[in-house]
């Protein structure tokens, strides 16, 4: 790589010195006079402190020539367009007359001779120089450790300090627990001295559980290679926020679980047999995965009869909170029994959920309700959408499901004969959903928290037996807390500088992590626990009212909230809200207690049995779309606007329709999903008329003419 010329500093040293001097946004520019033309190079440090080079396509000599001759004027113009103060000139071809002429002209222009690159491979020379550069930030491997309280917290293994160079190696040990289908994540971060951290690389490998003695080698600034893994590391494609969110709260969080399997025994004999088989698989898998800390209930159900005087086959509780073995014994007895017959379009889902809700005490472990079947439930009363006859006992699946949802930690799984097209089966499969024909018992059980949770990052501070021990040397350094800070920043507590590196930030002010964790069913069952430190500050105070986080909703639910500055008229406004809902086929079926201060009340509405449209129309099992419901609500706001006429300030949310009244001015808005997410994240806004308009970028009607769309950028 020598570029020696008598009396000159070697080119590599010149470039090295320039690279060392780079900081912040500084740039070194180099013009390479090559056979094809002039190649412009730019050197700068990336956000992790690693020196990076990039170049542009050569500007051909013909563009710098006039009448076939290299033009001094044009060459001068080209060179002066570059930063002359920091410009380095090199040439890589001694034989080309054009290059030689350009070299001479450049020397005359700049007063300094361009340096020759021996061998003519400037890119290779640059690569060697940059790879040999020492790193300027701490490199760490993101790991987890078990705190004294048993919780998993982020920490890191120090790999290389600032000043480390290519070829430096460091050895350390980690323990890997079973990862998910993507494997265990090896993420390397670079930390600035002031504590800001950025991801350097994120890879993953499918590993078996155990201890791994690893060696990290610094290949060049920004590139760390791990030796000692039995599997190849592949680029990780999941967003960082999802990876963080997938970390369970504890390493061994498995509390006793109560698995309740409700099996539909209507349909063909083959269908029933397949369902029983899947339940068999699930119970066996869960029994193994929970180390026998499992109690199992088995309930069967079929259809109601069509005629009142036909025999009713009721919901049968075959076993309740007994061992897996006892449940399996009962299950096997069902095999060979003929499938139940009766009304063919529905099954007693509403009755089985009611039965479970009545029996469930929570004393037998964390409830896990798994429903296996195909048919929809009987409605509590005439249902114009499906025209399925009502449940004779008038049981309401939605009410029963909400009663069940009140049990802390409850999880819902659904195994269906076919892809559920919305409705109850989507709600029943909130935490795990599978089809009979493609059932992975282990994966299904894991999603329900019936197996030891996946731990997506390596663990440190775990002894050879897998027990939590003293943290190893690599994790004891006080600086390691910086990694914890880094992760916390990503989670959203701090300034979250790293978040800038994640694309698709979405709504301003809402990190992707926050948004993802707000969407039910996307995170693992442990996601809420992982989010606990984030959610805690969200239980915010709006004025004199403390607004709790929103409740868990079914897919068909509409969240309703009313905030009034004047408490005297709350009955009138609430009645008006319920009238509007009634007009669009919704009814409030759950009301939270009003919050005193001003007046705030949150309610949940769902489709009425009469549906959204009383006129004769086609059966529509899927219900109206979110858009259609919003349009209907807006078209029927009359009673509510009358009810609010005497209010000075108010915020009424009817699903994705928001009515805000501030200082007597009314604003009616259809919220985008992102805006709804923000309200779920910041429930305090629904009791803050002035703030909500700013936070959602909404304006009262009166200001709309001269303003941007009050509905934001849309989706």
């Amino acid at each position, binding site marked *: 790589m020598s570029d020696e010329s008598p009396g000159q500093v070697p080119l590599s040293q010149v470039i090295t010195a320039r690279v060392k001097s780079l900081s912040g946004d500084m740039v070194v520019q180099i013009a390479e006079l090559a056979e094809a033309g002039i190649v412009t190079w730019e050197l700068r440090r990336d956000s992790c402190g690693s020196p990076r080079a990039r170049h542009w396509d050569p500007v051909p000599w013909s563009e710098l020539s006039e009448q076939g001759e290299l033009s001094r004027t044009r060459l001068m113009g080209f060179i002066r367009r570059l930063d002359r103060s920091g410009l380095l000139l090199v040439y890589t071809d001694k034989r080309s007359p054009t290059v030689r002429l350009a070299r001479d002209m450049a020397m005359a222009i700049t007063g300094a001779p361009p340096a020759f690159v021996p061998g003519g491979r400037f890119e290779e020379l640059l690569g060697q120089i940059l790879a040999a550069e020492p790193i300027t930030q701490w490199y760490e491997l993101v790991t987890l450790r078990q705190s004294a309280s048993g919780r998993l917290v982020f920490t890191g293994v120090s790999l290389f300090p600032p000043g480390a160079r290519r070829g430096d190696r460091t050895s350390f040990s980690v323990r890997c627990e079973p990862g998910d289908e993507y494997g265990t994540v090896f993420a390397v971060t670079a930390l600035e001295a002031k504590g800001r951290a950025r991801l350097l690389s994120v890879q993953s490998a499918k590993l078996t559980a155990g201890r791994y003695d690893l060696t990290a080698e610094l290949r060049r600034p920004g590139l760390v290679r791990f030796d000692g893994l039995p599997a190849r590391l592949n680029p990780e494609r999941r967003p960082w926020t999802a990876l963080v969110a997938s970390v369970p709260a504890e390493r061994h969080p498995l509390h006793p679980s109560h698995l309740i399997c409700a099996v539909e025994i209507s349909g063909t004999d083959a269908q029933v047999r397949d369902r029983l088989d899947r339940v068999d698989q699930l119970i066996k898998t869960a029994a193994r995965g929970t180390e026998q800390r499992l109690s199992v209930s088995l309930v069967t159900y079929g259809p109601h009869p*069509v*005629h009142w*005087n036909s025999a009713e086959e009721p919901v049968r509780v075959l076993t309740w909170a007994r061992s897996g073995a006892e449940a399996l014994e009962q299950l096997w007895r069902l095999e060979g029994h003929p499938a139940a017959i009766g009304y063919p379009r529905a099954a007693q889902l509403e009755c089985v959920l009611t039965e479970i809700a009545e029996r469930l005490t929570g004393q037998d472990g964390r409830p896990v309700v798994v429903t296996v079947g195909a048919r929809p439930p009987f409605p*509590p009363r005439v249902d114009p959408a499906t025209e399925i006859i*009502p449940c004779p006992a008038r049981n309401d699946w939605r009410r029963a499901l909400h009663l069940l949802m009140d049990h802390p930690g409850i999880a819902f799984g659904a195994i269906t004969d076919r892809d559920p097209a919305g409705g109850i089966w989507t709600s029943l499969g909130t935490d795990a959903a599978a089809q009979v024909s493609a059932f992975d018992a282990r994966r299904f059980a894991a999603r329900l928290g019936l197996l030891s949770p996946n731990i997506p990052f390596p663990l440190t501070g775990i002894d050879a037996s897998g027990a939590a021990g003293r943290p190893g040397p690599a994790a004891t350094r006080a600086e390691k807390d910086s990694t914890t800070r880094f992760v916390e920043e990503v989670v959203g507590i701090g300034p979250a500088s790293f978040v800038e590196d994640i694309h698709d930030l979405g709504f301003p002010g809402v990190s992707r992590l926050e948004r993802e964790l707000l969407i039910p069913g996307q995170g693992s069952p442990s996601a809420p626990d992982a989010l606990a430190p984030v959610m805690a500050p969200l239980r915010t105070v709006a004025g004199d009212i403390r607004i709790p986080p929103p409740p868990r909703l079914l897919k068909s639910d509409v969240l309703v909230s009313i905030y009034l500055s004047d408490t005297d008229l709350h009955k009138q406004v609430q009645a008006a809200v319920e009238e509007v809902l009634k007009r669009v086929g919704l009814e409030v079926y759950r009301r939270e207690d009003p919050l005193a201060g001003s007046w705030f009340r949150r309610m949940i509405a769902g489709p009425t*049995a009469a549906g959204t449209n009383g*006129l*004769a*129309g086609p059966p529509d099992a899927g219900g109206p779309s979110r858009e259609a419901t919003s349009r209907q609500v807006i078209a029927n706001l009359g009673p509510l606007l009358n009810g609010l006429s005497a209010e000075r300030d108010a915020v009424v949310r009817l699903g994705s329709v928001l009515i805000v009244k501030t200082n007597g001015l009314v604003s009616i808005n259809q919220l985008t999903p992102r805006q709804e997410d923000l309200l779920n994240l910041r429930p305090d806004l629904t009791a803050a008329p002035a703030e909500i308009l700013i936070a959602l970028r909404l304006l009262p009607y009166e200001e709309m003419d001269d303003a941007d769309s009050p509905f934001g950028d849309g989706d």
Partner: protein
Amino acid sequence: MPPSRAAASQSLTLWGPPSTGKTTFLAALSVALIRRGPVWRVVGESEDSARRLIELTTALTDAREFPQATAGIGHYRWTLHGRVKRRVKRRRWFGSRQQDEDVNVSLDLVDPQGGLVSSSWSDRTAQGDLIANLESSSGILFLFDPIREFERGDAFEHTFGVLEQLAQRAKNRPGKRLPHYVAICVTKFDEVRVIATAEKLGLLSYDTEPPGFPKVADEDARELFAELCNVSRNGNAELVLPLLEQHFQPDRIKYFVTSAIGFYVDPRKGRFDPDDYQNRVQPNPASPEARIRGAIYPINVVEPVLWLSRQVSSDRAR
């Protein structure tokens, strides 16, 4: 007042687009007359007709099945025997008085097969029979099935064709409308979507007598008919009402909201339950096959027949 000795003869035609429930209506009429008491009864004019009537009726009551729309049903003959009150004039200044009159009402059930502009000989013959039948009738029971209209939307096409041919035959009455009395029956009141529409329009009231069925007053029936026409599949049903009123004299038209099977009543409760009233159940939504869930309670099935009979009798008395 003793009835007049010679029973007057009338003929009523049960008319409607194909598969609008005419056969079920007839079967339900038999049950409704039994429920109503001894004054009226329906009998078959021949052994075959009597047997067919028994089959239709027991299908509804025992098998809880809807009778099949039978091809050739027009070959059977049924007659309603009953008694109506007729106003008769007294001599000179004594005004008029009510007098019971025995009547025999011939019921013709015409079920047109094929299109009314068909070129086939058999179809043209059937159409000719239909038109001739209507022309000679004293009164017409026109059945409008809102569910079929929503799903198929062929009421206007059928009605228009028949009425145009009927009007063409009556062209010796220039400028005048057809002379028939017409009872327009909006059927399937027991269907969820029909009753929901009536409720939304505020047209529902409830019988005070058990089992407390909902009802639509006859004076509101036209409004419900008009509203249901508006949700026709092809949008042409809204023309049916003006078409009928254009061809028949408005004071000779009366609207009824009817149900052949009525609402489901849980025998253990014995009362209409607004949360559970579906008497027609469709095991497979993709198949038109349906069954009857409980006992049948025909609604407004006898009333249009009696109204027509009274109108015809009164006309004759003038």
